[in-house]
């Protein structure tokens, strides 16, 4: 995590957002020329010989920008009443080069052995690494970037949605009733109905199959961290509008979108929190 990122995480005011924004711009190196969908191993062969380490570049696909349907991330309210997030046609501003698999236990363990990542107890090495928080994921990205001499990072929410394609859920809680009690009940029913039909035990990599972009395990039982901050967009009937970001909370994507504090490793909640939490937290990276 860069210093700028740290600053951005600590603050929740609108000004802090610019800090996030600046941090991101300085972090992103130039992008690679647009290529049709190609396996990245052909683009970036193993660098073991150069680095003296047995680290292979992760398998990726390169996706060319084209318009896609995207539900904006964050919470939207009008006069305090929840609105469904606006649905937009979006287009990425560059080619997206993204890992076709989630980062595995074996991948993560290499980073741990190299003292780039915190040790977290795990089971099977061919499974996606889970019980990782946003900080673990960014530490892994920084380590992998150093190893391979290329910039890897978590995808933004737009990038995740574009890559997930048909597995990106645009379902959103419909505009709530005015009556606060009615609204609570609606949200409760909505959350109950969208519980995942899987059990929580992670499957071996590829266990949930590939989507139309040849990318595996989107929207299975492992949700993925994104780099996008939580934002509350508040509007008033008067036309006044505010957007307040809290970068201590990141967008997590999977069967449904959710928001998690960046230090959470186990998304399980009981208690008064309403709604189904993600079953597991893992991640995949994009190459800038």
């Amino acid at each position: 995590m860069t210093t700028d990122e740290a600053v951005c995480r600590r603050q929740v005011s609108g000004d802090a957002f610019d800090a996030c924004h600046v941090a991101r711009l300085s972090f992103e190196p130039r992008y690679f020329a647009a290529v049709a969908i190609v396996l990245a191993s052909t683009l970036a062969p193993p660098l073991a010989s150069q680095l003296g380490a047995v680290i292979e570049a992760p398998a990726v696909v390169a996706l060319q920008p084209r318009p896609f349907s995207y539900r904006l991330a964050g919470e939207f309210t009008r006069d305090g009443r929840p609105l469904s997030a606006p649905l937009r046609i979006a287009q990425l501003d560059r080619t997206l080069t993204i890992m076709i698999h989630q980062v595995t236990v074996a991948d993560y363990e290499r980073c741990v052995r190299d003292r780039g990542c915190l040790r977290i107890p795990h089971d099977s090495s061919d499974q996606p690494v889970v019980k990782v928080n946003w900080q673990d994921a960014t530490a892994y990205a920084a380590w992998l970037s150093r190893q391979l001499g290329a910039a890897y990072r978590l995808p933004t929410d737009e990038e995740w949605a574009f890559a997930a394609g048909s597995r990106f859920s645009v379902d959103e809680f419909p505009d709530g009733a005015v009556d606060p009690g009615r609204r609570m009940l609606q949200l409760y029913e909505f959350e109950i109905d969208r519980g995942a039909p899987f059990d929580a035990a992670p499957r071996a990599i590829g266990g949930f199959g590939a989507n139309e972009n040849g990318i595996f395990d989107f929207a299975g039982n492992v949700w993925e961290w994104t780099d996008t901050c939580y934002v509350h967009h508040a509007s008033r009937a008067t036309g006044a509008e505010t957007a307040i970001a809290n970068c201590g909370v990141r967008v997590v994507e999977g069967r449904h979108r959710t928001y998690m504090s960046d230090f959470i490793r186990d998304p399980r909640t009981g208690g008064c929190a309403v709604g189904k939490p993600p079953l597991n937290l893992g991640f995949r990276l994009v190459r800038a």
Partner: protein
Amino acid sequence: MITEKSAFTENGSMSRRSVVLLGALLPTLCSSAAAMADELDLPRERIAPMAPPFVHPHEQSTSKGPKIVEFSLTVEEKRLTLDDQGTSIHAMTFNGSVPGPMMVVHEGDYVEVTLINPGTNSFAHNVDFHAATGALGGGALTLVNPGEQTVLRFKATRTGVFIYHCAPGGDMIPWHVVSGMSGVVMVLPRKGLTDRNGNPLHYDRVYYVGENDFYVPRDEKGKFKSYASAADGYADTMEVMRKLVPTHVVFNGRVGALTGKNALTARVGETVLIVHSEANRDSRPHMIGGHGDYVWETGKFSNPPETDLETWFIRGGSAGAALYTFRQPGIYAYLTHNLIEAVELGATAQFKVEGPWNDDLMTQVEPPEAIGTQVRAVPRTTAQYDH
């Protein structure tokens, strides 16, 4: 205790032998119990108890005379899943549910319970009724081996909600209780519930929330262990129990038993009686967004109920009762206000309450938004949008 140990060490072969030996005696025992009951010459009523959180239909007050109310409790030893991660134990239950069913009678009635321990079970069980007087609450008269049954009758002389639980002796007592063997008897005053001035109190619904603490052993990696049989897990479980730190504190046998699709329901204006039991450990019920209008914290109806409580205390080994009229719709969390136990260990229920919102009781004057003048922050993005 002795029976328990033999069932234990010989993997149930002893129990099966006792079944054969005692089988011939059972009809005699049953008929003698029936004969004694007949001597009372009171009307009888047979009740089919319901699995918690529901309670069998009953009168809240009665003008009729005392009767003999018959219940039957069948001990079911079964695997019970405690959470969404699939952690499970070999539970011991009354009628298959954790907690066991609530049994409702009126003061002066006789409670007549047939306790059945099917031959397929591995352990001896009994039942100690906190509402009963003498013989260890009936525990001393009801120890049944697998394949046996017994009938106990006691007079309901005191009003209130009272725990019943298995207590077969020694280490078996806490082990059977934290394996699920407890429930509640509710003895209502014949004239029904009253406030401190003697004015009648009624409820439209009654729910039974039974809180349980579970102690599941973990392996070296910290994962919950499961065992081939209850006996196999006994030593490890006892070790966790003796440290007094439960791995699960839950309502009605598992995390989420009373949330989501299983949430309790009510309507604005309805009055709900919530009976809360914990056979082994203290608890602190609290209704988030609501109150206890009338609370019998110690659960005994001859004492005046306290009013307007925020949180009440359930002493381990007792049950309490709280009466609340919902005034606002929405979702309420009913939990133990040790919030670590409620949120992390599972002791949370939810009420779904339908009805019109009351703006006078609560209104959102200013929704959450930026402090001071309007701030417009543009979320960082890697995409362009068609608006």
